[in-house]
């Protein structure tokens, strides 16, 4: 149950044996040491997470990626996208790092623990050769706003990335989304024609490329609101729309909001082979490779639209109630 007696800006913290609960007015988050990330994101009684979000480092191969053998050269990112694992968790309370508060350390806490800010940082290890790490920190303040900072550590010898960001899989299919950014589907090398504005998209359209592939990326986004009206909670009969908001912090992000993961798209040769759309996959992206198009049998994407994996990538965004 959500905590309803907290009228201050203080966060109530549940030092669990396996998870760290963070409650406030109308929100309730659970960070899991077991699944390696934010396991539950409940606002207004509605769960927003199907599985623990993780960094994403793959996009479903586009025809052009296939043609210039990008996927052969960078394919180890495909494995990492699927099998990334959490290697460390760091909990920071009111700015102070604490020892991972699992049993028996958590015996020292009570049912009335509070803080002004809680930050949980998860470190992920890639399964690339060589391997590298990604830190994802969630910093929650008393209003329930979560600031997510994502830091990729570049490593010499790693092949270029197709994309880098965070992927959130939501339990049910969204009714649509609204964002402030560029019109249409845009990529770094195909956004001159994008017109800035606020746009609403009904449903979760998947661009009907003959062979399903990465699609529906929106560059230069200031914020994104995802709307749903269904949950997987058997006791929840409401059909009212509820909304989650992602906002840019320092610089604009890119995103896609479709019913499929990169791997689901990757595996289909036709649209009819895709699973029935039942979830919402929101990718909040800090870096996107261009799509290219000089030709489809070898020509690379223009140099400035590559993503080096040898350099660090960092970006920040916020999650809040819509």
């Amino acid at each position, binding site marked *: 149950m959500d905590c309803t007696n907290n009228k201050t800006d203080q966060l109530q913290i549940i030092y669990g044996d396996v998870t760290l609960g963070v409650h406030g007015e109308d929100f309730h988050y659970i960070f899991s040491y077991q699944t390696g990330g934010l396991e539950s994101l409940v606002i207004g009684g509605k769960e927003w997470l199907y599985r623990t979000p993780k960094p994403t480092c793959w996009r479903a191969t586009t025809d052009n990626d296939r043609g210039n053998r990008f996927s052969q050269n960078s394919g180890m990112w495909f494995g990492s996208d699927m099998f990334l694992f959490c290697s460390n968790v760091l909990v920071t309370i009111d700015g102070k790092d604490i020892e991972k508060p699992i049993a028996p350390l958590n015996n020292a806490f009570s049912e009335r623990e509070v803080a002004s800010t809680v930050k949980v940082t998860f470190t992920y290890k890639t399964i690339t050769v060589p391997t590298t790490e990604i830190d994802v920190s969630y910093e929650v303040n008393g209003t329930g706003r979560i600031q997510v900072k994502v830091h990729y550590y570049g490593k010499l010898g790693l092949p270029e990335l197709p994309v880098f960001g965070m992927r959130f899989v939501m339990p049910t299919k969204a009714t649509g989304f609204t964002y402030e950014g560029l019109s249409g589907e845009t990529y770094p090398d195909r956004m*001159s024609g994008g017109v800035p504005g606020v746009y609403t998209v009904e449903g979760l359209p998947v*661009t009907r490329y*003959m*062979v399903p*592939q990465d699609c529906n990326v929106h560059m230069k986004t200031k914020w994104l609101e995802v709307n749903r009206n269904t949950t997987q909670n058997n006791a929840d009969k409401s059909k009212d729309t509820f909304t989650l908001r992602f906002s840019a912090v320092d610089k604009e992000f890119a995103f896609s909001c479709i019913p499929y993961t990169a791997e689901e798209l990757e595996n289909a040769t036709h649209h*009819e082979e895709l699973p029935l759309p039942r979830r919402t996959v929101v990718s909040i992206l800090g870096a996107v490779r261009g799509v290219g*198009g000089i030709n489809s049998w070898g020509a690379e994407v223009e140099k400035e639209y590559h993503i080096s994996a040898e350099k660090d990538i960092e970006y920040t965004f916020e999650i809040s109630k819509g």
Partner: protein
Amino acid sequence: MVREMKADMNWLDDPEVFRVNRLDAHSDHRFYKDMEDMKNESNSLTQSLNGNWSFSYSMNAKERPMDFYNVDFDDQTFDEIQVPGHIELNGYDKIHYINTMYPWEGHVYRRPKYLLENHPEGAGLFSEADYNPVGSYRKVFDLNEELIGKRVCICFEGVEQAIFVWLNGEFVGYAEDSFTPSEFDLTPYIKEKGNVLAVEVHKRCSAAYLEDQDFFRFFGIYRNVTLYAKPSIHVEDLWVRPSLKEDNTTGKFKMDLKISSAMESDIDTASEIGTVKVILLDKEDNVVFQTEDAINETVSLKPVEIEKVNPWDNHNPYLYTVLVQVYNSEQKLIEVVPYKIGFRRIEIKDNIILLNGKRLIINGINRHEWSANRGRSITIQDMEWDMKCMLENNINAVRTCHYPNQIPWYYMCDENGVYMMAETNLESHGSWQKSGKVEPSWNLPGSHVKWREVVLDRAKSNFEYFKNHTSILMWSLGNESYAEENLAVMNQYYKEVDPERLVHYEGVVSNRIFEDRISDMESQMYTAPWDVEAYLANNPKKPMLLCEYMHCMGNSLGGMISYVKLLDKYENYHGGFIWDYIDQALWVTDEVTGEKVLRYGGDFDDRPSDYEFSGNGIVFADRCEKPAMQEVKYCYGLYK
């Protein structure tokens, strides 16, 4: 010309036989018996034979019903098929998509006749093949009243790939070239009632070497079939040459007519059989000038200069109407021919292509004729949709890749100011491009004299049918057919018959020995922006355009702005044609869900295939715009 009386299957194998009794190509003008028909655009002198035909499919020539053209042949066992349409899409033969490879790759070993010393014969290559399907079509028809008693011809606007025609048991003719009209004179055999038209269509013949376009490989009667009757005096051909003088306000008007009479002796003796009146009308139907000449086999108008014309271009596609009225010696109106033309001037000056004195910018696309329902047998509605889509997205030019299109498309381009690169039906990349590498040990059309007339005829057909279309700024020799003597001869042909237009060919980049004899412009395909710049910055011999660029396969079209920026920097860069307009995929019923789904190359057990390479459009196969279209619209809008 001696009329052949008997069909011969060996013609399928011989590149030197590509037309038998086929009429000469001529301008695509519409003609009417009087002004009223013209105003209503209803031509009572034509009779469509589209619709249900009886049909039989055979796997090869040996198994075909040999005597099906006989009047008393019993076609009870025949099926019904819709004309126009592809035989494959009616379920008779496997649908097959393949790009550069010849469609028999891995199935049959073939080398074309005459090119290699160890393969001199090529006899039976197609006529005796185990797999070379044949469609046998029969249609019984009565003549419409207006056609009775007149000279009657038949026009097959498009039949792929070789066609034998009989009427009432008599052999009429043979033709190849799948993408230009094939016309035959039926007058000697036609009756008022109960005509039996028999058409045998062979999927492949020696022309297959020249028609290796990157598309689904179909056969059948896939464009209109129309009978037309010629009035007693008939304009067979007109060649209107409106041009614009250097001052860009004075128009020049030249025109040649070829006229036939039902009584050939009339015209031979040049006795006064009548007069031909030519009137030029502006958009508001004001008479700009008119003139009258005595009818002769050929009538050449004295060149006329016209002050203050409205020049034609993309922004203002101003069209005048040329009205040709044919009167007999009793001053009775026999025939009316209207043709809309525009005054414009295309030229190269100081290495820059100029239209009406201004630098030409091509915001172009390559367009295959395609419908997810009907394949290449597209409808007027499809064409109208395409035109609207192009105009809405700032596309100002179209390349008819890689064959002549249906006739109405050329009229639409005139009306809407869309610049055309009118391409000849020729693509032979399977002969010299193997796995993407240049390997011309044998290549077509090459240099061999026995392969010359066939490609020259394709150039002639392209020129003769479409020469009056103002929108055509350049002729194109074809696509990806390497470059040797026979292409140089085609180039020379276009320059000779039509020195006022430009000639385009890209393939010369693979064999630059022919650079000075082929193509008025440097044309490349898929060159990266920095390599385009390298060419332009290095004292280019010719102005440059990209006949194909921005390969819009799947989620693509990244980096288009880099090309657009080159237009600012180099006056002799003229833009290009995006590859391409529409994804080639077909609606089928999903065998699992029963839903309508789009399928592409390789989805029909068709092997070898190039699979999803069939889809590179800026619109999907169902004509929904791809997301990339907003980039196209923006980039092309910068130089509108």
